[in-house]
């Protein structure tokens, strides 16, 4: 059994872990569709996107591990960060750890996250960290496609049968409260914005809303009212679903340390 690692709490590392972990856990959820998507072609599309997100997570976690070493902590590689961290040390948005739900939940979450990630990558292309800027330049193309794919499906479901429209409405009611965390800002965001590492999440709100509201309207959806509820995954406090996803994701490396094939 591999022991857990302790991670650096410096703000630059935390900022990168929030991004990398959101990609990683989102990928894990999307990959659950492998073999179960509504049609074969869509099965391949969803798993393609999961692999894109794994690629983004690998690059960002690798960079986060390097920065740990540089700021005087212990450097870690991508595998250690993905497989040997405890739940509280994962800093992904709570939104991405929620169960994949039905196809409407998946499509809506994909649209919200792809839009958010696209806007984030666009800004990270100008990051003061050249490594991160390079990762963003590649990732932004992938996010753009993910966004288009998900947006098309939202409109199809919203404008489809009564069944698909009501499932999409249910999905929005379910996920909407979790969108707020995408735009919460704290001292980590402030550090990133001050140093030019990347935008604070609050900076993304306006652009995200400008892209999502027309899409919601075209999909026949009305945005629900703002709620006081705030999820706290980016602070390491997760929903009840997180432990299960980590158990599945980490089991092999925890049991057989360094296993490879």
């Amino acid at each position: 059994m591999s022991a857990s690692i302790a991670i650096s709490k410096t703000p630059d590392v935390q900022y990168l872990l929030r991004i990398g972990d959101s990609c990683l856990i989102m990928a894990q959820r999307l990959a659950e569709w492998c073999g179960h998507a509504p049609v074969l072609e869509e099965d391949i599309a969803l798993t393609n996107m999961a692999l894109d997100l794994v690629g983004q997570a690998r690059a960002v976690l690798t960079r986060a591990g390097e920065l740990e070493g540089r700021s005087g902590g212990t450097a870690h590689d991508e595998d250690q960060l993905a497989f040997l961290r405890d739940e509280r040390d994962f800093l992904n948005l709570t939104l991405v750890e929620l169960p994949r739900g039905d196809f409407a939940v998946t499509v809506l979450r994909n649209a919200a996250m792809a839009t958010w990630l696209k806007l984030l990558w666009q800004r990270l292309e100008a990051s003061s960290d050249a490594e991160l800027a390079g990762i963003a330049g590649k990732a932004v193309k992938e996010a753009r496609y993910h966004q288009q794919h998900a947006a098309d499906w939202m409109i199809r479901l919203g404008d489809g049968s009564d069944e698909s429209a009501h499932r999409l409405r249910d999905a929005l009611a379910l996920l909407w409260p979790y969108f707020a965390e995408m735009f919460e800002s704290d001292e980590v965001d402030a550090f990133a914005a001050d140093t030019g590492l990347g935008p604070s999440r609050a900076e993304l709100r306006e652009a995200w809303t400008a892209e999502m509201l027309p899409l919601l309207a075209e999909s026949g959806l009305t945005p629900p009212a703002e709620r006081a509820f705030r999820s706290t995954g980016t602070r390491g406090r997760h929903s009840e679903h997180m432990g299960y996803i980590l158990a599945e994701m980490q089991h092999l490396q925890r049991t057989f340390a360094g296993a490879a094939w």
Partner: protein
Amino acid sequence: MSHPESGPSAGPPQAGPHPLGGSTGVPAGRGADMSHEWPLWEVFVRAKSGLDHKHCGSLHAADPKMAIQLARDVYTRRQEGTSIWVVRSDQIVASDPGEKGSYFDPMEDKVYRHPTFYELPKSLDHM
């Protein structure tokens, strides 16, 4: 418990499942009734500029935009392409397989239709 593993062929989704409870969420009808199937599209991919688009397979999609997107995901995910064409399979007019004999066999013994009887000048290396 409604289970996502039941898959699309298991019939219409159960009434009112919780959105996190699984099931596919796509309008019912695939399976028994073929008239609800998405139409079939033929996919042509160009590997690099300068080359022809080559037929590489087919897929089901609801409309042209979806067909192009799915073709991208199904047929170019290993860097096979720089351009994609799709065409509705029912829009392709094909020769009749029953006429194969009368259409193609007569060409069998017409070797003189190949330009292989010319002496080529030495300066032409590659023909």
